[in-house]
């Protein structure tokens, strides 16, 4: 059970139950849809990009606790950041999830996102945590196609 408690930390369970920024964003100028065919998780990310900055962000969709909490915490983490800062954050986040914590890895950069560190013990769930981020990236790049984890 200890691994499970690491995976399903209270912060994650809270964000699953009451996700932040969980609505359609009126006035969004970038959106993208993401899909995980393995488990049926679906997410839409809405962005209000102002110049180089993510002015506002929200999401909608259905998914497991990991994907929903990841989306919720992602929106809180990247709001007000530049595109490059968001991309760098995803890069570090991904390193943590896949256990590539080399000398360049600094968990302090992640802030609250560090609650997902337990995911690395569950390799099949990494895609759940990264789906919102891949979808965010697609929205920033203005991709029309639905993002898939497969």
């Amino acid at each position, binding site marked *: *059970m200890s*691994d*499970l408690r690491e*995976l*399903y930390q209270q912060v994650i*369970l809270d964000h*699953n*139950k009451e996700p932040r920024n969980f609505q359609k964003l009126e006035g969004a100028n970038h959106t993208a849809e993401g899909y995980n065919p*393995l*488990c*049926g*998780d*679906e997410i839409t990310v809405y962005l209000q990009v102002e110049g180089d900055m993510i002015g506002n962000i929200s999401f909608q969709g*259905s*998914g*497991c*606790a*990991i994907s*929903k909490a990841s989306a919720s915490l992602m929106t809180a983490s990247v709001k007000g950041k530049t595109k490059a800062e968001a991309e760098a954050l995803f890069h570090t986040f991904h390193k943590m999830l896949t256990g590539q914590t080399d000398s360049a890895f600094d968990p302090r950069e992640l802030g609250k996102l560090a609650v997902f560190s337990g995911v690395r013990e*569950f390799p*099949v*769930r990494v895609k*759940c945590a990264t789906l919102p981020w891949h979808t965010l990236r697609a929205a920033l790049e203005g991709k029309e196609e639905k993002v898939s984890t497969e």
Partner: protein
Amino acid sequence: MTTVGHPIPGKIRQAPSAGFDVEKVRRDFPILRGKAHGKPLVYLDNAATSQKPQVVIDTVTQYYLADNSNIHRGIHFLSDRATRAFEEARAKVARFLNASDPREIIFVRSATEGINLVAHSYARRCVKAGDEIVISAMEHHSNIVPWQILCEETGAVLRVVPINDEGELLVEEYAKLLSARTRFVSMVHVSNALGTINPVKQIIEMAHSRSVPVLIDGAQAAPHLPVDVHALDCDFYVFSGHKVFGPTGIGILYGKAHLLEAMPPYQGGGDMILSVTFEKTLYNVLPYKFEAGTPHIAGGIGLGAAIDYLSGIGLEKIAPYERELLAYATDTVSAVPGVRLIGTAKEKAGVLSFVLDGVHAHDVGTILDQEGIAIRTGHHCAMPVMRRFGVPATARASLAFYNTRAEIDALAGALHKVREMFA
């Protein structure tokens, strides 16, 4: 195996069906003695694939140890032994399905390949624009997509028989869909996502009254129910080896001989020919016409051993034991607060699909896995079924005759843990 807490008050623990000793059959399956995450393995993912008895493992090993050779063309000792074993396996499959002739048994890779073969070599020849192919709303993707491909190529139309909220086929709607335009019916025997047993004999009779041929997808039926293609009078029947306790990579297509004989080959190559010149090739007779290239010899022989094993126990004993176990599982799991069963047909086999209020199926699967319990979560390759019931995914426990009530208790106990964690 320890029984996990949360006993269900007032439940009477009946003895398993007479004449079936589950502890004895469990000893035939080495993997069931294993552990997962340090807990005794509780394997409830049998609709995805079944475990293999020692005798199947030994048969495949023995083939590679002592008999390995290519079949049907060698003149030597080993080739003769391998050929005999492979053809004996074909005869066993014929008896298993009560087919009248082993020539009606085609070895393929999977039930999926069997359906594709029929779509390609049979249906494609008799379907034109505006014609209709009838399937049901509870099909696995493998009995949807081959027909969609055919429809795209020919301009034919796919018609889908709806199901009710219990997950039962609406036979009266099926009757309405059958028309002068219907060219083919392809229907699942037992639904992999819902467990529903379809009234296939009636489905076939109704189609035949309009001279429409019928394929039955028996991938989930063959492990649980006696199948008699002669009594059913189906034109084609498919099932897969690995779901009936045999090896992966081998499946069976049964077809009535006169239909198979009139069909062109599915693939060209070795073994399926009588003679080849650059001007003309003469195709081999049944069943070899449909078995181009070296087949999965070990798989076929292993499947023969699995069928011997199943027949040794007897599906007539297995079916009532599983029926009782499923009834017990249905009561036990639905007693967990927040559980909603998906698929509550009166006639069911082997499958318990459910959702847990407030917890995604994927999270249920991960937590159960940590308890050593293997279930499947997701859409079960039946996305239209998920849409019909308005859920993105379900958790599915699927049974085999080696499962026990103690394992069902462990499942229910772990579901209580899930609820506690997500409370």
